[in-house]
């Protein structure tokens, strides 16, 4: 176990710049998730930490050691791959023992270590099987077992759950979290699935275009996104972005929304954003679907809640809630409504807009205001 410091790392393949100055300080025992769309450089960064790719410039420091130019085998890092990469010619026991054998661990210790890991992951009955005789979930466990066996300083996971079916993925997700809580090891985990990132991480690094857009706890990233990209990427269904004008409202500011020909001023919580410089100009309002709900009487009188009548264009039941697509400021806007409160398509429906968690972005720079 150790802390990992990634200091201003750049990585280029010829003229193609994949990583453009990555800085991450990962503390001991932390579960960090690198998340982003494909091609954002998250896997490259993981490979750079593992030593499978050389960084172009910058430093990778693990504990007290600068491992920037160390060979993968000297880094004391274990990695679980997306395809699991189990050695097909070896049975599960040998797969787990391989790394220990190479490191010249005595035979009795290897056997003890294999038993320990097998017990931990509940794969004891599988030890004598070949990888081809295992199911996807079992292979996944064995791959984790191989990583755990060496007791490395840090674990790297490269989309380890993406080859599993949806149900198993959720199960393994919970198990991985339990395992991390039990072992308390440092983990860097790559995924493109923002739900996986939210549920597993202590901290999330959202990446795009080779740059870390934001590095924070799941709640920080969700509630206080640094820019439009992060706001739109995290959360499902994703945040609504509505272009609207800033107007004066009492002593504060408000944004103006238009629905079904009527205009509404929605007061802005000054704690969320200072819009004084944008008076009369248009900004991007970011509001999550769950902050636009059907009318609940106990909420109507709250300070930053405004009731607006919208026209229902599409309804999408998800079971627990129904998503209602409405048109506001001539832009699509998704609202999250209790299934019993939903009106018919084409009807008008009153919605409560809760602005206490709304965020605002500059239209041009897409940065948070």
């Amino acid at each position, binding site marked *: 176990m150790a802390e990992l410091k990634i200091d201003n790392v750049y990585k280029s393949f010829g003229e193609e710049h994949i990583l453009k100055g990555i800085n991450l300080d990962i503390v001991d025992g932390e579960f960090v998730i690198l998340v982003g769309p494909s091609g954002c450089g998250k896997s490259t960064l993981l*490979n750079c930490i*593992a*030593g*499978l790719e050389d960084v172009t410039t910058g430093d990778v420091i693990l504990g007290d050691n600068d491992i920037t130019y160390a*060979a*993968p*085998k000297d*880094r004391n*890092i*274990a*990695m679980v*791959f*997306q*395809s*699991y*990469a189990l*050695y*097909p*010619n070896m049975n599960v026991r040998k797969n787990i023992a*391989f*790394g220990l054998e*190479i*490191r010249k661990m005595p035979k009795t210790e290897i056997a003890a270590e294999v038993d320990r890991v097998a017990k931990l992951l509940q794969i004891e009955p599988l030890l004598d099987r070949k990888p081809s005789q295992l199911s996807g979930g079992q292979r996944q466990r064995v791959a984790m077992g*191989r990583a755990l066996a*060496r007791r490395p300083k840090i674990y790297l996971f490269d989309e380890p759950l993406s080859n599993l079916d949806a149900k198993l993925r959720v199960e393994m997700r919970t198990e991985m979290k339990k395992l991390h809580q039990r072992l308390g090891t440092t983990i860097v985990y790559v995924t493109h699935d923002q739900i996986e990132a939210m549920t597993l991480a202590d901290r999330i690094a959202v990446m795009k275009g080779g740059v870390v857009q934001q590095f924070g706890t799941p709640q920080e990233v969700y509630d206080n996104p640094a820019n439009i990209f992060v706001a739109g990427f995290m959360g499902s269904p994703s945040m609504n972005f509505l272009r609207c004008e800033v107007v004066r409202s009492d002593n504060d500011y408000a944004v103006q929304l238009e629905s079904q020909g009527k205009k509404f001023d929605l007061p802005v919580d000054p704690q969320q954003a200072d819009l004084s410089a944008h008076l009369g100009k248009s900004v991007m309002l970011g509001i999550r679907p769950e902050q636009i709900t059907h009318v609940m009487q106990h909420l109507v009188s709250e300070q930053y809640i405004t009731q607006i009548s919208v026209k229902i264009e599409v309804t999408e039941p998800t079971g627990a809630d129904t998503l209602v697509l409405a048109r506001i400021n001539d832009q699509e806007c998704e609202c999250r409504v209790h299934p019993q409160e939903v009106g018919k398509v084409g009807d008008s429906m009153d919605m409560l807009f809760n602005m206490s968690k709304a965020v605002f972005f500059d239209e041009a720079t897409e940065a948070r205001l």
Partner: protein
Amino acid sequence: MAKSNNRGYAKINGRAVLYGVLIIIAAYYLLPLMLMIMTSFRSMDEIRMGQLIEWPKSFSLDAWSMAWSEVQIGAREDRGLRPYFLNSIQMVIPAVAISTILGALNGYVLSFWKFRGSELFFGALLIGCFLPFQAILLPQSQLLGSLGLAGTMTGLVLTHVVYGVSFTTLFFRNYYVNLPHELVKAAKLDGAGFWIIFFRIILPLSAPILVVTVIWQFTQIWNDFLFGVVFSDPSSQPVTVGLNNMVNSSTGEKQYNVDMAGAIIAALPTIVVYVVAGKYFVRGLTAGSVKG
């Protein structure tokens, strides 16, 4: 009911036609071999009296022992094809082994340890596959001469290895690019180096392509005549050259039965290899197309 019966018959008839055609084609290809085998069992008297294509009236293995160890070929002391056959074995085993091992290593490096210009290197290596034998005869004999290997078995083996490496590299490289690269990454993180990964991870997965390469190289080298005749002297001539010298000797009567027996002896090892490992050959050739 009646309809489905008809359809059943149609199916059977279709099968019958298919198998009929296949049997005819198979027979067409087998006939020359049959003729060779039959002729090798006849005596010269019988051939002289009758026709060349005829069922044997008597059965003798004389022609086989003649071809193997009695017939005079050229001016050498050892009689028969036996010394040539032994030469071929001495040539084919090291040549196949070395070219296969080199091909496996080349393929391994070109797939998993790419270096700057490795694709170009592979492309250049592939040109070797398109070089006709005749094109390298002169430069190769100059090279062997300056190495002092002219006419030696070592020179012949070297020639076959160099010529074969292009093909073996191509085979192994194309097989290895279909293996998941994460295997090698995982092994690197497990602490394994170049050779351990090769011997403990990659080579155990190479059985299908090993079989293909060995069969390919074995047939190529065993059946080769041109290199055998150009780069050897009487002490190192392979069986193809021996057979040619035996059949083409212009003095005396043409002994068809001995010629046929000799030709079969010369071809026997390749036939055996195909029969034993042919199944794996087809499987290995198609192995890359199905994800393992």
